[in-house]
């Protein structure tokens, strides 16, 4: 360490004020200054995750439930026209109805298939993968959990009721746990109802148990003090 940072006889000495910083600085290597550029598609993935995490998106109807394509009346209205022409003969009418109905069916299937493909490609659809009502192990709170998926992104939505404030010096934490209870995966602290994006490193198929624990602040491992728990099904 340089003497002017420790030499009390120097009136302008920093007297060790920056001692830790200087030590850290002295430990720097050239590699600490070299940065790499993140992959070009990473921002798109983050933006998709942010979009999924917004509640407004989750409440939007999926394209598959929108009637604009599958109930399009322009083709299905054709039989009405045919009905006005019954004087041309029942056999002809029947044939035309069959042809038009078949064409309509094909058109519906084609348009529907395109719609589904659009849904897939835009990744805007959100599906319910599994859910559970958590068993109450301790305390007054109740909770339900839903696992939602959009594209390759999964979201755990936990709705709680009657959850009191955590005691001083502690907090609630949300976990996904494997059935053998050997390796809980933290999804972070929570104070009540919450929505959490599930990291790619955690597979809910391997960790299907939703667990809410009471944790002492500053701890990172599961406390073993579970309040609510349920298995996603």
């Amino acid at each position, binding site marked *: 360490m340089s003497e002017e940072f420790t030499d009390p006889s120097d009136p302008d000495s920093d007297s060790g004020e920056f001692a830790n910083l200087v030590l850290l600085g002295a430990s720097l290597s050239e590699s600490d200054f070299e940065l790499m550029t*993140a992959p070009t598609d990473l921002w798109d993935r983050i933006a998709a995750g942010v979009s999924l995490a917004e509640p407004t998106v989750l409440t939007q109807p999926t394209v598959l439930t929108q009637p604009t394509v599958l109930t399009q009346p322009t083709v299905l209205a054709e039989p009405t026209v045919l009905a006005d022409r019954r004087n041309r003969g029942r056999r002809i009418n029947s044939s035309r109805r069959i042809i038009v109905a078949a064409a309509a069916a094909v058109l519906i299937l084609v348009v529907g298939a395109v719609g589904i493909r659009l849904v897939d490609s835009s990744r805007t659809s959100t599906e319910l993968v599994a859910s559970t009502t958590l068993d109450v192990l301790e305390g007054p709170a109740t909770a339900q959990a839903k696992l939602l998926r959009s594209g390759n992104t999964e979201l755990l939505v936990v709705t709680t009721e009657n959850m009191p404030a955590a005691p001083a010096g502690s907090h609630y934490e949300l976990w996904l746990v494997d059935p053998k209870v050997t390796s809980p995966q933290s999804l972070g602290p929570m104070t009540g109802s919450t929505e959490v994006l599930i990291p790619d490193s955690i597979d809910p198929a391997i960790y299907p148990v939703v667990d809410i624990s009471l944790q002492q602040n500053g701890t990172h491992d599961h406390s073993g003090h579970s309040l609510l728990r349920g298995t996603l099904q």
Partner: protein
Amino acid sequence: MTQNQGGDSLDKGAASNPGSGNELPSMEAVLDRPIELTLGHDDPGITAFVSGDDGALKEIYERHSSLVFSFCTRSLGAVRAADATQEVFLAAWKSRGRYRPESGSLPAWLMGIARFKVIDILRSDGRAPISVDLTGSGESRDEDGRGGNPTENAAISLTGERMLLAEAIKQLPDRAQEMVRLKFFEDLTQAQIAERCDLPLGTVKSDLRRSLVRLRLHLEGYQDV
């Protein structure tokens, strides 16, 4: 926090610096304002980010993704770095309401999140396997009974702090960078730096002090996340 103390020290240093009134340009005007910008008090991008403007998130990402991604790459390897970086920024977005500009710099806060993500990922990989009793007995312990791998966690934390410091040094004006590098890497005294840079000793003392204050502010918040 020390930024207020640092700010006071900054003013005192400038007032007592015998060399600050000479004809040589002082970095006071340059360094005073960036300290606030670093902490986000007046940065509209950071304000917008905290208030939930998702356009601001992209700006924050463009500013700091290289730092976070590089740290994740060094800690986890290239294959997992992108996923980890994604998790860091999503966690930051979700927790944006908890960021306090007056408590630390935004990059320090982001890197603090990254540090925990990296440690969590390594732990979930089984590099520090844990065994937890969820039966309600209250027992919770790591395999080694000590709460993970402290040595590895400390190394990861130090790597992040070094990269954060290196990034802050790169943001200093050229002359300040030179002084700081001479101090850090060659362990020169202020008198030696003054001689090497051909500057009055008073100027070196005040400028170097300002730079160190600024670097320290840049690191604040990293350990607090």
